[in-house]
């Protein structure tokens, strides 16, 4: 035996990842993304029948989707409902987060739990509850009914990013403004809001996305007059053969990418603003 004996350490670098782990974790990422990404090439295939692998390349599915009045109104309904829901729940969430993060009052932890509880109640239970509740006021099949149901549901998803932002906010900046003669209201509008704005917008985006994708409650209260995009997709997946779903899925995939990029940019802007002290 010649040559240098291999230096053998009896410990490994904790940062070392063996190849089996790379294979398994790579497959996990594959599992998470590839089924959805497969829909992208399919969306450029025929609009008559879904074929794998696609045999032709065209935009028929997209053309069909954008020219179909029922799908147009579903998209429009979803946009309106989600935008209104997002405004309502972000407003409530901003006020509540200020109180929960900065205030001290009795039963605060109980109230926090209550505000975040819509996150864990099963959607099917909420769907049934809203069906009974909204029917009493004749709000089944209306956009207002959907906004009423979605506002509590999206509230926690707006509260979480907003309160995280507020916790990182340096309140001595407010004191500085107050010392310089601004009143509390001016301070809030001119100092606090501009700094925390990216966090608030993040909350609003989350609320929007949750409402835009909600289908279980929608099944109960959309009726036939306020059909949202997820409800329409649900009906199609369950009861019809509709070969333009890959196109719709691709568009929703783009929406998710857009959302992710926006949240990333907002976070970056937020940390930049928080650093200036």
């Amino acid at each position: 035996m010649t040559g240098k004996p291999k230096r053998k350490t009896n410990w490994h670098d904790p940062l070392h990842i063996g190849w089996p782990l790379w294979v398994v974790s790579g497959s996990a990422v594959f599992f998470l993304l590839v089924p959805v990404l497969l829909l992208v090439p399919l969306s450029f295939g025929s609009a008559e029948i879904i074929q794998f692998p696609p045999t032709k390349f065209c935009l028929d599915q997209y053309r069909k989707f954008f020219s179909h009045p029922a799908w147009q109104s579903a998209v429009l309904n979803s946009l309106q409902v989600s935008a209104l829901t997002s405004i309502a729940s972000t407003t409530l969430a901003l006020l509540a987060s200020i109180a929960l993060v900065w205030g001290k009052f009795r039963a605060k932890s109980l109230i926090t739990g209550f505000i975040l509880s819509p996150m864990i109640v099963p959607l099917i239970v909420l769907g049934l509850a809203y069906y009974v509740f909204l029917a009493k006021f004749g709000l089944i099949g209306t956009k207002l009914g959907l906004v009423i149901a979605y506002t509590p549901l999206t509230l926690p998803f707006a509260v979480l990013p907003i309160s995280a932002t507020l916790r990182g906010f340096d309140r001595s900046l407010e004191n500085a403004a107050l010392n310089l003669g601004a009143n509390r209201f001016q301070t809030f509008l001119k100092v606090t809001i501009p700094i925390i704005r990216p966090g608030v917008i993040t909350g609003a985006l989350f609320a929007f996305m949750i409402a835009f994708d909600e289908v279980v409650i929608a099944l109960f209260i959309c009726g036939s007059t306020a059909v949202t995009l997820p409800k329409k997709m649900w009906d199609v997946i369950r009861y019809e053969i509709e070969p333009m779903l890959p196109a719709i899925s691709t568009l929703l995939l783009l929406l998710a990418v857009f959302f992710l990029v926006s949240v990333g940019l907002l976070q970056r802007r937020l940390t930049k603003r928080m650093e200036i002290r």
Partner: protein
Amino acid sequence: MDMQTNSFTLNRASLWQRPGFRYFLLVTPALVALLLLFAYPLSRILIKSFFNPGFTLKEYVYFFTSPLYIRVMWITIELSLLTTLTSLVIGYILAYVLRRARPGIRNVFLMAIMLSFMISLLVRNYSWIIVLERNGVVNIVLRYFGLIDHPLRLLHNKFGVVVGMTHIFVPYIAFPVYSVMMGMDLNLEKAAQNLGASRWQTFWRVSFPLSLPGIGAGSLLVFIMALGFFITPALLGGRKEQMLSNLIQIQVVDLLNWPFASAMSTILLIVTLFIFFIYNRYLGTERLWGGVKT
């Protein structure tokens, strides 16, 4: 403030002086909205399940004595446990690799998990239909390579449901476990190995126990969500894989049996809240809420 004054005689001005009260006013709009538009509708369901019109336990007795519903309950629990387990394994491995990977690869992995997390639930379930159905991608590929003669049955059974739900729940494990691991000092592993532990021993006796809080938080959350999950069993399950939530919908939409649907909803709600209570008690909600301190 005069300590002798009892709260009933506090005048408005002094109440307004208390900073706690002013903050409380800010939280009132959200509280009122939740009480009227969330707690009240839910309480109606609870009441409906017990009164028809006089007090009765009829619906509950029927539920717990009918073999059909007992079976559905077991299927719900079984599928939820299976899903939690598979999500846990996949999510844990991802978190483990994320913790140790170089920043470049870590970011790619993180973006992939987050993107998957953000894509519409319906789209993700639909994509599994395309992949797993009789003439779906998996069967086409396997047949192309001559590995099978007849298409495999991958959809409308337990397999389909567990795959679809795992796909949705992996990030719910990966993120909390990852955040716990990020707070862990990797020198502890070096120390263990210095003291003679093998790599395997180091993992099971040092790294794994230290990541338990993340595992507990993630898997309880996934289990709670799986119990009440509706979309995936409806789309990817067969008749035998329908869970409690699917039966609730059938009772309402097809059979118009409100009292019974309300009773099932109440059971689901109580079980969910009970597990959540345990969670809160032993693990603290902070992890779940991503650190909203209470």
